[in-house]
């Protein structure tokens, strides 16, 4: 169980971080930066997976927000309408009562104080909210009074309410304190006497009843409901704005008969503001009913929902990121292990190929040596024959001549072994000065007999002025051996092989190896640098030669390109730096 857990832990552990330790495999890796691969994979997957989630969440939020807003609007509008109806009814009912009283009683009866007191009593009983009644003549003099305040005989000619009442038949005032220093509302009804003069019946209403009416609509601590006049001054106390007569900072509303709802902020808290102008069918009032609802209070259900939703989204995001991270680590690990196995195989193959190159060289050397050996063999055999077949001693001259032949043939063998030793030794040396002319002629020397025998016309054109290269001679040699071997395999008898070296600029040397051989079909040309790809189907090509050559050129900091036409020939172009930097060499 524990072992299983450890194994599964290992598969999600970022093992690929070790790839930088495998320096010897570096050049064979397909991917150079596994951290980058890993982070990119996580980034792309996370973005792809989370974008729809985030978008859906945002859309969801907006939808909810919208529906909550419209619900709040609707509620506020309903509340405002209801409160307006009550307030309007409150005013209208009392105005109607006064109109009825005036029409029913007439001036004579109303000016009797007892009668007036009786009427006030009845009004208080029937409707409530009335605090006193008084009758005024045209000049603003108080003719009769019933009520608790001793304000008889005062002249109201200059009072604003009186001036207003003169203009209209009915009048409802704002809340004011007046002489009695208590907030109240005046309702006045103007009536024409039979003598065409007029009088005014005035009732004062205490604001208590009105406030009660409004307070009854208050639902919860987040709702504020109050009256303001057209200038925005409070007419009833407000939870938010304070006591009566306080000037609010509400925007002056434009007159409208209907209830209106708008969004606003109160002390930077979002609120929904409903307002409605209060007017009866007979007279307008100076009041505007205002309902202010704090959004937060109404939205707590939604906020709770959103909190749950946020938790769900948050946990999902964490889970998704975790799963993606683990999956990416797992995949990158697998990729790394496969890549590592591939790199190790490639390294192995390169070593094998190097051995194969040496094998090919050995074959060339054997061929080269065979001829002088054959001469030695026959000449020495002949010298022996001279003594075995004929009794008479041979003249010195012929023996010496034959021994000279043997020595000459031994010299030829010696030259070849020297060349081979010089050649093989280069596999050990890392960076050294190389004369390209010499290197090419060394490589070609092992193909000399084959070229002669097969009638292949090999031309080398490397100018004497070409600078000595400083590079890994073993690798460069292997590149040349591989490409020249390839060319020899590709060409038929009597074809041409050209090796052209030239200096492109002070830092770069170009080597072109072109043959007039069978060429490579176009569809295969792109693949020839891939490992295990071989065009030599009927022969025993491993498909590694060019792949390794490609890798070697890259290691030397160079480039290799190939042009080929089937049946016409192939041309490999290698560009290499004249001087390779020590650090660049793997």
């Amino acid at each position, binding site marked *: 169980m524990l072992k299983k857990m450890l194994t599964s832990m290992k598969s999600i552990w970022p093992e690929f971080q070790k790839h930088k330790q495998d320096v010897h495999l570096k050049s064979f890796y397909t991917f150079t930066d596994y951290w980058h691969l890993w982070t990119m994979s996580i980034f792309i997957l996370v973005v792809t997976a989370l974008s729809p989630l985030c978008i859906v969440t945002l859309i969801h939020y907006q939808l909810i927000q919208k529906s909550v807003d419209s619900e709040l609007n609707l509620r506020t509008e309903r509340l405002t309408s209801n409160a307006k109806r009550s307030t309007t009814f409150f005013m209208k009912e009392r105005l109607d009562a006064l109109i009825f009283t005036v029409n029913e009683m007439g001036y004579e009866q109303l000016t009797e104080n007892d009668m007036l007191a009786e009427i006030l009593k009845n009004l208080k009983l029937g409707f409530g909210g009335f605090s006193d009644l008084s009758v005024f003549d045209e000049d603003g003099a108080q003719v009769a009074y019933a009520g608790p305040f001793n304000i008889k005989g005062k002249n109201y000619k200059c009072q604003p309410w009186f001036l207003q009442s003169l203009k209209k038949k009915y009048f409802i005032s704002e809340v004011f304190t007046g002489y009695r220093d208590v907030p109240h509302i005046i309702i006045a009804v103007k009536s024409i006497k039979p003598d065409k003069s007029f009088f005014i019946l005035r009732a004062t209403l205490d604001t208590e009843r009105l406030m009660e009416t409004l307070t009854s609509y208050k639902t919860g601590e987040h709702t504020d409901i109050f009256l303001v006049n057209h200038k925005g001054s409070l007419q009833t106390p407000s939870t938010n704005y304070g006591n009566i007569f306080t000037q609010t900072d509400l925007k002056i509303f434009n007159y409208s008969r209907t209830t209106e709802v708008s969004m606003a902020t109160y002390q930077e808290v979002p609120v929904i503001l409903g307002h409605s102008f209060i007017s009866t069918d007979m007279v307008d009032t100076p009041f505007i009913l205002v309902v202010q609802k704090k959004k937060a209070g109404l939205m707590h259900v939604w906020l709770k929902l959103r909190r749950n939703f946020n938790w769900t989204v948050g946990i999902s995001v964490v889970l998704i990121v975790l799963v993606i991270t683990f999956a990416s680590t797992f995949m990158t690990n697998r990729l790394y292990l496969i890549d590592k196995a591939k790199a190790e195989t490639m390294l192995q193959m390169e070593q094998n190929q190097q051995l194969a190159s040496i094998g090919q060289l050995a074959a060339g050397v054997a*061929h080269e040596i*065979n*001829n002088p*050996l*054959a*001469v*030695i*063999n*026959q*000449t020495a*055999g*002949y010298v022996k*024959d001279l003594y075995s*077949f004929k009794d008479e001693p041979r003249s010195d001259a012929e023996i010496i001549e*034959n021994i000279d*032949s043997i020595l000459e*043939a031994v010299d030829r063998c010696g030259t070849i072994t020297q060349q081979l030793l010089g050649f093989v030794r280069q596999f050990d040396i890392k960076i050294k000065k190389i004369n390209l002319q010499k290197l090419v002629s060394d490589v070609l020397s092992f193909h000399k*007999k*084959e070229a*002669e*025998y097969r*009638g292949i016309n090999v031309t080398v054109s490397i100018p004497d002025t070409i600078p000595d290269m400083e590079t890994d001679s073993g690798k460069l040699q292997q590149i040349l051996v591989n490409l020249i071997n390839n060319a020899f395999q590709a060409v038929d*008898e009597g074809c041409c092989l050209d090796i052209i070296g030239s200096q492109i600029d002070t830092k770069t040397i170009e080597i072109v190896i072109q043959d007039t051989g069978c060429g490579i079909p176009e569809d295969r040309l792109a693949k020839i640098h891939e490992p295990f790809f071989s065009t030599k189907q009927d022969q025993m090509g491993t498909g590694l030669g060019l792949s390794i050559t490609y890798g070697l050129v890259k290691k030397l900091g160079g480039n290799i390109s190939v042009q080929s036409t089937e049946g016409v020939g192939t041309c490999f172009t290698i560009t290499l730096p004249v001087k390779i930097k020590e650090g660049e060499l793997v």
Partner: protein
Amino acid sequence: MEHGNVLIVDDEKKFADMLAKRTELRGYHSEVCYDGRTALQWIKKHVDSVTLILLDLQLPDMYGTEVLTRIKEINPAIPVIILTGHGTERDQQKCERLGAYKFMHKPLDIDKLMTILEHIRETPEC
């Protein structure tokens, strides 16, 4: 000569000369040609008397295989031994297909050659 005529075709002069001298010492008449054309001319003249041809694959003027083909055109009965320092398996197969009697590598053991020559003399029809 008593035993027969041997033609040695090889551009390696020293080798050809020495081999000729040694076969002569062993009772054969030897003729040496250093290139294909001379060899073919000689064969045309001595088509009936030639016992064996030793033929190198690398000749300055033509391929050994081509010379072999021409020889077989002149007389398919003449035994031809291919003697080469470079021979690959493919060469061997090709030569055998063309009718070479034997495919031998340099350096050449003279005793082996003598054994083959004796064998040819004993069974002239091959």
